């Protein structure tokens, strides 16, 4: 029984954290708010050089063959430093290709994903129901598949080169995942005004876009389910990182800010809020750790526990980052203060890949109704 990451995993987190402090952090996040998704391009070469891109790929393909558990603490560090780059999407695309891609797909995409030459995003949309007809449809015409439809909430889509898209096909009766070239004719990306400007989400419209056989992965449903589990767990870890960072800053602040002749951290109302937040943080830490283990080990219950971790960690992060604003007083409400950057991150994460109520409904179907995963 060893319910903890290894020493090596913590060491790697330490060095990546230091690196993230240079390329990311609140100042970089504000840069991304100002410049938009383009900002991600400016840091991609350094992320690649540090080895955090394409991490799940084998060394021949440019990666370092890290497991999800190896990478879990890096997601946490990315959350701490508000990394303005679709790291989770890069990880999901890489691991997805490693597991489900053809040899040709791997050979073409993986070195480029690891080298930061192409930016991958995932068309998460409304993942609870990607096959219910509201997503992207593929029509068979003259022997080739043509895509139609729209997906929303796609991170950094305005600067993406490849989009991983869940697709349904009535004409061939099945589901698939497409590797859609974002620069192809018919692909239209519409930037949305994103609350979390350090992680912009966009809308993509596909109008009669050709999907060549070499860009297809069949069948789509198990691949997509797997991607959602990985994505949710990564988001839980990012939420944890974001919350713990601003919580630490808040503690530092209430220890020095004085009112009524004392540091405000001496007042019990402040103490109790901090204690409750700490409890939630540590609980989200073990919840996301357990989910990371399930995902990394391909456990059959990974779907259940990634949903649990996602719901728990995002509820926690919303509360803790909100308390951070409150406990900073007026400073907490300023643009120059960091609290709002973390607060908006937490809420954006909470909205992605299924909200907490959606996660709990998914869990209820497994636990209460006895549906099998």
């Amino acid at each position, binding site marked *: *029984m060893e*319910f*903890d990451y290894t020493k090596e995993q913590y060491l790697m987190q330490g060095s990546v954290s230091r690196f993230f402090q240079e390329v990311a952090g609140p100042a970089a996040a504000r840069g991304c708010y100002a410049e938009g998704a383009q900002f991600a391009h400016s840091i991609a070469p350094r992320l690649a050089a540090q080895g955090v891109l394409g991490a799940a790929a084998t060394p021949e393909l440019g990666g370092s063959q890290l497991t999800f558990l190896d990478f879990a603490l890096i997601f946490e560090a990315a959350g701490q430093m508000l990394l303005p780059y679709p790291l989770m999407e890069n990880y999901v695309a890489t691991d997805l290709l490693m597991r489900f891609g053809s040899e040709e797909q791997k050979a073409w995409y993986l070195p480029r994903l690891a080298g930061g030459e192409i930016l991958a995003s995932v068309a998460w949309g409304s993942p609870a129901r990607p096959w219910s007809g509201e997503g992207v449809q593929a029509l068979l015409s003259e022997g080739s598949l043509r895509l139609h439809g729209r997906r929303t909430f796609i991170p950094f889509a305005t600067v993406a080169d490849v989009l991983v898209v869940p697709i349904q096909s009535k004409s061939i009766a099945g589901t698939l995942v497409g590797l859609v070239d974002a620069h192809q004719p018919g692909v239209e990306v519409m930037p949305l005004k994103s609350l979390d400007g350090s992680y912009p989400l966009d809308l993509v419209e596909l109008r009669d876009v050709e999907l060549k056989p070499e860009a297809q992965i069949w069948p789509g449903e198990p691949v997509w389910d797997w991607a959602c589990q990985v994505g949710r767990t990564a988001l839980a870890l990012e939420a944890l990182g974001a919350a713990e960072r601003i919580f630490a800053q808040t503690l530092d602040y209430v*220890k020095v800010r004085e009112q009524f002749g004392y*540091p405000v*951290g001496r007042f019990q109302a402040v103490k109790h809020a901090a204690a409750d937040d700490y409890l939630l943080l540590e609980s989200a830490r073990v919840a996301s750790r357990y989910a990371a*283990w399930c995902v990394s080990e391909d456990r059959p219950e990974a779907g259940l526990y990634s949903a*649990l971790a996602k719901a728990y960690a995002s509820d926690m992060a919303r509360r803790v980052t909100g308390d951070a604003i409150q406990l900073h007083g007026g400073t907490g409400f300023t643009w120059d203060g960091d609290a709002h950057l973390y607060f908006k991150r937490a809420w954006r994460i909470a909205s992605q890949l299924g909200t907490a109520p959606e996660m709990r409904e998914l869990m209820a179907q497994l*636990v209460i109704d006895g549906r099998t995963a």
Partner: protein
Amino acid sequence: MDIAFGKEQEDFRDRTRQFLQAVLPPGWGTSRHPYPQTAKEEEELGMWWERTLWEHGYAGLSWPQNYGGQGLTWLEQVIFSEECARVNAPVGVNGLGKGLLGPTLLVEGTEAQKRRFIPPLLAGEEIWCQGYSEPNAGSDLASLTTRAERVGEEWVVTGQKIWTSYAHLADWCFVLARTDASAPKHRGITFLLVPMHQAGVKVEPLRQLTGEAHFNSVTFDGARTALENVVGQVNDGWRVANTILSFERGTWIVGRHAQYMREMDALLQAARDLPGTGGSAAQDSYFRQRLMALWSEIEVLRFHGYQVITQLQTKSQLGPEASMLKLYYSEMHKRFGELAMEVLGSHMPFSEGLESVGAGLLHRAFLGSRAETIFAGTSEIQRNVIAERVLGLPKDDRH
């Protein structure tokens, strides 16, 4: 990361299961079983359980063999607690002895004290109670006024203790008493072991909101105990008492998740059987959300338990973060009890009748959980401890 238990431990789990099945009466663990109805029956069962565990080699699993323990590790202790909770095994009456006094003696006791007190404690021959709280010293325990004076070769104890669980069954009491009235309040306290069966000790039951009387008022009026029955040094009792507080808060959580999950299973069954808006309560989206939120919290308690085990393997003791676990499980269980009553809806006022309500199990959780946020340090005190000792916020000398 490796969450599985080793083969040795899984073998121990199998043996434990077989043991529990063999000794518990047929039908035990199901809602149909005629569980003890009165406090007296429950206590008799608890006494029987203490002896049964001892006879079969399940008492003091992680305690050293030379004092009657089994010489195993924490892991076996955890597995045993889990398995007991899974089948709703009886609760013994020597929890304070096993959970608090024993561990304290193992750390702070003299060799003679360990040899004298631990074997009969494990055998269920001597039951212990904890004499800390007083009518005017609860959260502010260090303000206690019960006195002990040295008279010849004995200590003479005078004062009143209150909320003393199981005092009516106890043979011994571990008492915090003031031995130096002139010292600052934390410095003049001594940790004493006092025999209960003597003229100077009066025990009066206090009825709890559950209707039962498991706790008492204990009056010491010139009660005596031998000079050597001091644990640690004279006037160093506050530190000795705090050694066990972190045992108390930390170790009790491990295995608890299994008990709570059993209650949750009973609640889910009740939700399937009881009406909600538009179908059963289990189909009602409001209850589905709340049930899964609590289910998640119980699972998180299981993960916290793994974390504790991992730490104990290398650290041997928990620090102030044990307060976090105590706060976590007690507040969660209270929310669980409230949710259970909400699910029962119009059946809520009755704890009998419906089989699915777990033969009163849910009502016991509902009422019993109200004590968990009070005993062993209230939730407010735990939050103070977390804020000051874990998070380093400025200390407030009012506690």
